[in-house]
């Protein structure tokens, strides 16, 4: 069927199906129509059956009585017949002729045949019957009945008649048999009266047509009413959908038109209240957020100037520490260290507030990610050696060439590497402490993954590591110069490039952070050249 069907038909069918899926009206109307058709069909069938049964019952009663009357009359006439009549054929003829005449007037057919003869296949003939009637119209079952019983009986039959011009007509009918005895020969004869039921059939057809017409009109009416009702309900719903879509798109000022006081109107009112409440809260949140960012930015800026002065003073003290007593010298060193941290924290805060204010811009250039890795490894070698951590770069194939802001990419990678050195551990018990940098690229993207074998991340932590000031273990002392904002800034940087920064970790198996950047800024990212879950982790699992 699919092969034979032309494409436009399929197309049209799909459109119809789409319409069906999307339209409540169509489904409600369709369902109601189907239900109505079922009910009307069942009721109609029942009514027609009842009508038919009633018609038949009435007709049978009437014809049985009429046949009994005819038989009584015939018996009466036979009882009155002279004994000296010995010509059975003539008596039969004389008996049946007036009945046939009455039959012509009252629309029934007559067969008078000897009971022990089959009426149709009587080889000797002898049956007297209405001209033009096919004697086979008397069913052989009825003939057989009278070969055994004298009780009057009836059955349904098909009455076949042949007109003078040779046209044969057949119609349904009822045949009633009554047995008589001709005094002329003392034999039993059966008087079959055949009553056509075509008039009843016409009545039934009339009733059927009326019922069918009424049913069709009823179904159309129900469909129309249902369509009107669903339209009343669905139209406001449709409007609400449109308004909801606009609200979702940010047009918070959109509202439904409320008309009337019915349920739908109250729904629209509630909807509008909900929209207004949402709009108010979103505005408040936006305002609060803006005030906070502004506050952070302002605080950061306001801290810079006194910090510069404190810095200069600190530098003086630090330079002169050799002249201090050991305790004071140690204090000066601590002051210097904390000032460094304070400065970098302030810088990070300013960077974050730049992102929040949307002021961050990219300075794009062609960057080879592998070069970036080597440079970062070089810049963090001191820290790594201090921790006895071995940092290695592993190109995983493909070109790591992307369009990016090299300063920001370097910052991201440096953050990741120093973070990894902070949390690094030995790959295997007793082995060297290693941090691996993997670089890969393809025609759409380039990626860097930083892998450590430290304590790893608990379930759920991989999403939270990018939160500002988030610590996996709040009690753990900061051993590196991390401000708690590094990963947040890295994530913002990655997003600025249209790239991804994702974390994976598992307790005891270490963690891996993967930076994926599109080859061209603005191109959508579909997949990363490197897996987020490292192969060795999979192996171990």
């Amino acid at each position, binding site marked *: 069927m699919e092969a034979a069907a032309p494409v436009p038909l399929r197309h049209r069918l799909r459109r119809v199906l789409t319409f069906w899926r999307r339209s409540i009206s169509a*489904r409600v109307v369709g369902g109601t129509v189907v239900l109505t058709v079922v009910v009307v069909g069942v009721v109609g069938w029942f009514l027609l059956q009842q009508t038919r049964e009633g018609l038949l019952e009435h007709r049978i009663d009437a014809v049985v009585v009429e046949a009994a009357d005819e038989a009584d009359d015939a018996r009466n006439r036979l*009882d009155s017949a002279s004994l000296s009549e010995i010509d059975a054929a003539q008596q039969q003829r004389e008996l049946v002729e007036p009945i046939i005449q009455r039959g012509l007037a009252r629309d029934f057919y007559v067969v008078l045949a000897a009971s022990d003869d089959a009426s149709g296949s009587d080889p000797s003939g002898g049956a007297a019957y209405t001209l033009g009637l096919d004697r086979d119209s008397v069913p052989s079952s009825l003939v057989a009945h009278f070969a055994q019983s004298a009780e009057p009986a009836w059955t349904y039959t098909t009455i076949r008649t042949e007109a003078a011009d040779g046209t044969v007509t057949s119609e349904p009918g009822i045949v009633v048999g009554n047995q008589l005895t001709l005094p002329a020969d003392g034999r039993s004869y059966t008087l079959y009266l055949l009553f056509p039921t075509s008039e009843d059939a016409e009545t039934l057809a009339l009733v059927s047509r009326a019922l069918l017409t009424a049913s069709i009109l009823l179904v159309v009416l129900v469909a129309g009413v249902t369509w009107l009702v669903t339209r009343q309900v669905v139209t406001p719903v449709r409007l609400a959908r449109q308004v909801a879509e606009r609200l979702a798109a940010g047009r918070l000022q959109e509202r439904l038109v409320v008309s009337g006081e019915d349920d739908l109107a109250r729904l629209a009112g509630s909807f509008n209240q909900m929209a207004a409440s949402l709009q108010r809260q979103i505005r408040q949140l936006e305002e609060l957020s803006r005030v906070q960012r502004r506050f952070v930015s302002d605080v950061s800026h306001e801290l810079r100037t006194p910090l510069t002065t404190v810095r200069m003073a600190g530098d003086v003290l630090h330079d002169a520490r050799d002249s201090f007593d050991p305790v004071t010298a140690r204090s000066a060193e601590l002051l210097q260290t904390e000032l460094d941290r304070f400065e970098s924290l302030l810088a990070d805060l300013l960077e974050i507030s730049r992102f929040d204010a949307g002021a961050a811009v990219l300075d794009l250039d062609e960057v080879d990610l592998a070069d970036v890795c080597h440079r970062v490894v070089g810049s963090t070698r001191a820290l790594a050696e201090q921790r006895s951590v071995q940092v290695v770069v592993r190109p995983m194939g493909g070109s790591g060439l992307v369009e990016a802001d090299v300063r920001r990419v370097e910052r991201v990678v440096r953050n990741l590497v120093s973070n990894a050195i902070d949390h690094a551990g030995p790959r295997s018990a007793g082995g060297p402490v290693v941090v691996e940098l993997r670089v890969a690229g393809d025609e759409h993207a380039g990626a860097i993954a930083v892998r450590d074998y430290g304590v790893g991340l608990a379930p759920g932590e991989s999403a939270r590591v990018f939160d500002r000031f988030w610590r996996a273990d709040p009690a753990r002392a900061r051993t590196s110069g991390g401000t708690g904002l590094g990963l947040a800034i890295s994530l913002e940087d990655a997003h600025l490039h249209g790239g991804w920064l994702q974390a994976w970790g598992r307790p005891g198996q270490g963690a891996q952070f993967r930076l994926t950047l599109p080859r061209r800024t603005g191109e959508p990212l579909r997949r990363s050249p490197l897996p987020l879950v490292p192969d060795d982790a999979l192996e171990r699992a």
Partner: protein
Amino acid sequence: MSGPGGVPLHRRTALAAVLGGLGLAASGCLSMPESGPVVEADGGSTSEADPGTVAAIDARGPEDGQSPSEVVQGFLDAMQAFPSELATAKLFLDPDVRSTWNPERTIVYAEASPPAGGTYHQRVVLTGAEELDARGAWQGRLTGTDAVLDLDLREVDGQYRIVDPPDALVVPEEWFSQRYEQVSLYFLDSTGTDLVPEPVYVSTDEKLATALVSGLLAGPGKALTGVVQSMFPEGLRVDLSVPVSDGVAAVSLVGDPLALGDEDVQRLLSQLSWTLGQGSSIQAFTLTVGGVAVRSVGGAEQIPVSSPQADDPGYERTGSTLFGLRDGLVVAGSPGDLGAVDGPWGATPADVREIAVSLDGLTVAGVSSGGTALRSAPLQQAGVTRTLLTGTDLHDPHWDRLGRLWVVDSTTAGAVVRWHRSGVTGTLEVPGVSGQDVGGLLVSRDGTRLLAVVHGSRRDRLVLARVRSSAGGRPRAAVAVSDLQGDPGDLPSRLRDVAWTSETSLTVLGRPVAGSSSLVSLGVDGSPVSVSGVTTAISGSRSLLGSSVDGAGVYAVTRTGLADLSVPARSPRTSLDGATALTYAG
């Protein structure tokens, strides 16, 4: 309504399609059945016949191994089936004659000898056998070889069967008298104005109407040509039967439709009306001839039956009134309450010895005291006496409905039957009566029957003659003369008087033997009639007084008064108050 997926949609579409198809099937293909089982109709119509007053007799068919005499006896018994049917009797016949055996006559016997004879020949001697013809008219007694059934038999499949059945239904008298009754077929007299009864015997079962109509169609017979006539043209035949339902007899005749004038149709309908009126269950009838319905003058298709009494205009006036002479004056009234009439003869003695009052009750005729003149005068109105005819010894004047006045003139050369009508007189030669010694004369009201008591040398005879008349009513000849005999020995050898007891029956009074006179009832066809309640012997009676009108009493006139013959003989007699020559009209 949930889940607007593709699968439910397909399901619904299929469901809708199926339902649609069902709907179409329901509306278009619903039709009347054309076959089915055979169903017995309850309440099989059993046409209930009236519970008759006589026993129904179911004939018994032949049994294997019956002897020839048993077969003949079985045949005779089977003919007594009632309601009548011959199918069983036919089983005793040789198959070759079964289909042709058509017993038209009826033989009624008082006693039958047991069948006797050889293997292939059986003889049954019937005693007191009488014969009825196909119409049921009494044909008289069978004597000699006619009263013997000689039946040949033959072996058919090892069984004896009758080869030459009699052309008659042979039944015992008792059976017959219980199941047949004498009724009349009404024909028209020669003028076509009056209906004349011809008595026949018919079965009282459902075949009564059929038999009556068949008898009418058969006509009165050649012997009565000119006496009576039938309006039914020849060639008509009863179509199967004349069924009676709800008191209406449907007379359907096969033949050419009637080509008669309105008057003749009316006469024909009168014939049917009077004839069918005798069936107690028949109140009306319809007539179709050759498929064409015959309507009465009024246009009605359903015609009520009638009776002679209802149609006789003179009935009310003179039906049961007695007339007589007292102190020479004509008196009229009921027995015991006679008063002089208003006419001239009621005022002054008319010098008559016998009187006759016309059937219309207007005229009285009388034979002068010397018997030489026949005079007439108005009965109740003023008028003059006229002499109608003169003779030697006139006696027994009688009127008939045509206004003819009949009288017997006993001349020296024997009796002469004379008549007078509207100033015209004539003599009718009646064989067996004219020239004889006639003791009395009776004329039927319709004027077609003359009944004379003829004194013979050894015994008296009762002679019935039918009067053939012209279309104008003038008597032409006496035909079909016969002696009425009744059962042998019933009639006394010497007869004194005879009187009508109905249109078709008579009572005969014999001369007294040992002081008592015997009374015998007879049919006008000579058949013996047993009239219930009529005394069979009475003492001291001189003459009879009777009328064919129903309701008129039949009396014996004795010295002490009138003896009502319908009550026991010992009942008191009604005084005559000196009245003589008592008579009813006619």
